[in-house]
C-alpha cells in the first residue's frame, strides 16, 4: 500500500471526520491515582540503581578530604603537639641536670686524655709513650644521653673544680697508697665527680649541701659508690667544710668516713675540734 492509498483512506474519512472530531473528550476520574503513585514510587525504589560499592580505601580517602575531618585532624595535631611540648618542658625542669664531662669541657673525653704533668684524669701516672702497659686503658666515660632531646635544658651554675682534679694538679698521687686494696680495685670503676652515672652527676663532697644531702647520704644503694672515695679525701673535705662551718656537709662527710673506716674516724676525725663542733 502506498501513500496514494493512505490519501484514499483519509479522503474517505475526510467527509465524515467532522462528525467524530466534535465528540468531546472525557476527563479521567481521579480515583485510583494515589494507588498508582504509591505503586510507582515502590517500583522506582526497586529500580533505582544501588550506589556503587567503592573500595574501602577510596571511601576513606574521600572522607578524609572533607573539610570537617581536616579541621578535626588539625585540631588534634595542635592539641597533641602542645601537650607533648608541655610534658617535655616539665620533664626538663624536674629531671636532674645531666651535664657530661664532654659537654662541660666542650668535647668528648679522649681515650688517653692527660692533664698537665703527664697525669691522667684518674690521678695516676700515665705510662710513657702511650697508654699501653701500667695503667689499664680506661674507656671514656659513657655519656648518659637522655632518651629524648631536651630543648629546654636548665642552665647549670658554674661548678667548682672537681675533687679528683685537685690532687692531679698538686701531685697528690701518694694518697692513693693509703687506700685499701678493695678501694683501689674499685677506684678504676669509681665514678668521679663530674662523671655521670645513670644520669646523676656525682658532686664533690664539699659541695654537698643540705638540700643535696638525701641524694648523697649513704643509702643501701649509694653506699658502695661512696665507699670508693678515699678516706683521706673525705677527711680533707670534712676539714674544709668544718672550716667553712658547713656542718651539714661535715656530718655527711664524717658519716661516710665512719662507714668506710671506723678506726680512722675515731682517731682522725672525731678528735678534730672544728669537726667535733658540727657533730
Amino acid at each position: 500500500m502506498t501513500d496514494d492509498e493512505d490519501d484514499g483512506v483519509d479522503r474517505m474519512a475526510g467527509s465524515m471526520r467532522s462528525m467524530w472530531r466534535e465528540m468531546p473528550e472525557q476527563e479521567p476520574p481521579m480515583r485510583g491515582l494515589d494507588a498508582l503513585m504509591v505503586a510507582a514510587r515502590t517500583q522506582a525504589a526497586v529500580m533505582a540503581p544501588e550506589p556503587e560499592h567503592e573500595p574501602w580505601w577510596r571511601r576513606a580517602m574521600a572522607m578524609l578530604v572533607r573539610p570537617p575531618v581536616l579541621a578535626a585532624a588539625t585540631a588534634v595535631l595542635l592539641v597533641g603537639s602542645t601537650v607533648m611540648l608541655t610534658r617535655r618542658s616539665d620533664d626538663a625542669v624536674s629531671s636532674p641536670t645531666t651535664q657530661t664531662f664532654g659537654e662541660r669541657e666542650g668535647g668528648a673525653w679522649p681515650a688517653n686524655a692527660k692533664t698537665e704533668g703527664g697525669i691522667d684524669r684518674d690521678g695516676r701516672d700515665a705510662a710513657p709513650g702511650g697508654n699501653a702497659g701500667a695503667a689499664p686503658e680506661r674507656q671514656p666515660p659513657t655519656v648518659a644521653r637522655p632518651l629524648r632531646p631536651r630543648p629546654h635544658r636548665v642552665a647549670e651554675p658554674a661548678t667548682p673544680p672537681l675533687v679528683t682534679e685537685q690532687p692531679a694538679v698538686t701531685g697528690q698521687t701518694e694518697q692513693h697508697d693509703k687506700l685499701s686494696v678493695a678501694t683501689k680495685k674499685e677506684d678504676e670503676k669509681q665514678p668521679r665527680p663530674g662523671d655521670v652515672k645513670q644520669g646523676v652527676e656525682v658532686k664533690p663532697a664539699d659541695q654537698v649541701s643540705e638540700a643535696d644531702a638525701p641524694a648523697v647520704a649513704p643509702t643501701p644503694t649509694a653506699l658502695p659508690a661512696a665507699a670508693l672515695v678515699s678516706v683521706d679525701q673525705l677527711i680533707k673535705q670534712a676539714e674544709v667544710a668544718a672550716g667553712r662551718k658547713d656542718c651539714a656537709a661535715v656530718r655527711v662527710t664524717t658519716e661516710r668516713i665512719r662507714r668506710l673506716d671506723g678506726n680512722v674516724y675515731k682517731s682522725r676525725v672525731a678528735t678534730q675540734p672544728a669537726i667535733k663542733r658540727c657533730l
Partner: protein
Amino acid sequence: MFNDTADEDLMVMYQKGEVRAFEVLLSRHRKPVYNFILRFVGDKETAEDLLQEAFMRVIKGAEAYKRQAKFTTWLYTIARNLCVDQTRRRKHRKHASLDAPMDSSDESGTLLDVIPSNEMASDRKSVNKQLHETMQRAIAALSDEQREVFLMREFLDMPFKQIADVVGVPENTVKSRMRYALEKLRLELDDYKDLAKAVAP
C-alpha cells in the same frame, strides 16, 4: 522541569528511580488513554478499571522497557490488549442487547433511545448530543479489529505503521481494516450527514 522531555527519556529516568518522570508521563497520557479505552469498551466504569490496570502494567513493566521502543506504542499496546480481553470476556457473558444501557450511568439512554426519530431536535445542544450518541453507537457497531484501528487513527492521530505495531498485524492489514471501518461508518451515519453539517461550527 520535564515538560519538553520525550516520553522515552522520561521512561528511562523513571527506570533510574525518578518518580517525577512517571508523574509527567501519567499527566500526559492519562486522558487520551482513558478516552481510547472508553470509546473502545463503551463503559465508564470498565474504562476506569482498565485505565488503572494499564498504568499499573506500565509501572510493573518499566524495568524491562527498552529505550528503542516508542513509549506510546508500548502504552497503547497494553491498553488495547486490555480492551480486547475485556470485550472478549463480555461477549462470552452476554451479547449486547439493544435495550441495554450504553454505559453504567443512569442518565445514559439505550440504543433504542438514540435511534433517529423523525422529530428533529429543536436546539443545537440536543442535536449535538444526539449526534454524539449516534456516533458512539456507530463506533460500537464496528468489529474490534476495525474499531481499534479507527480509534487510533482518527482520535490519536497515529501513523498506520505505529498502529500496525500496536495491533501486531501488517500495515496493509491496518489500512484495509480502516477502509472497512470507514465504509461501515458511512452507512451508519449517512442519515446524519446533513445533521452533522448543520451543527458544524
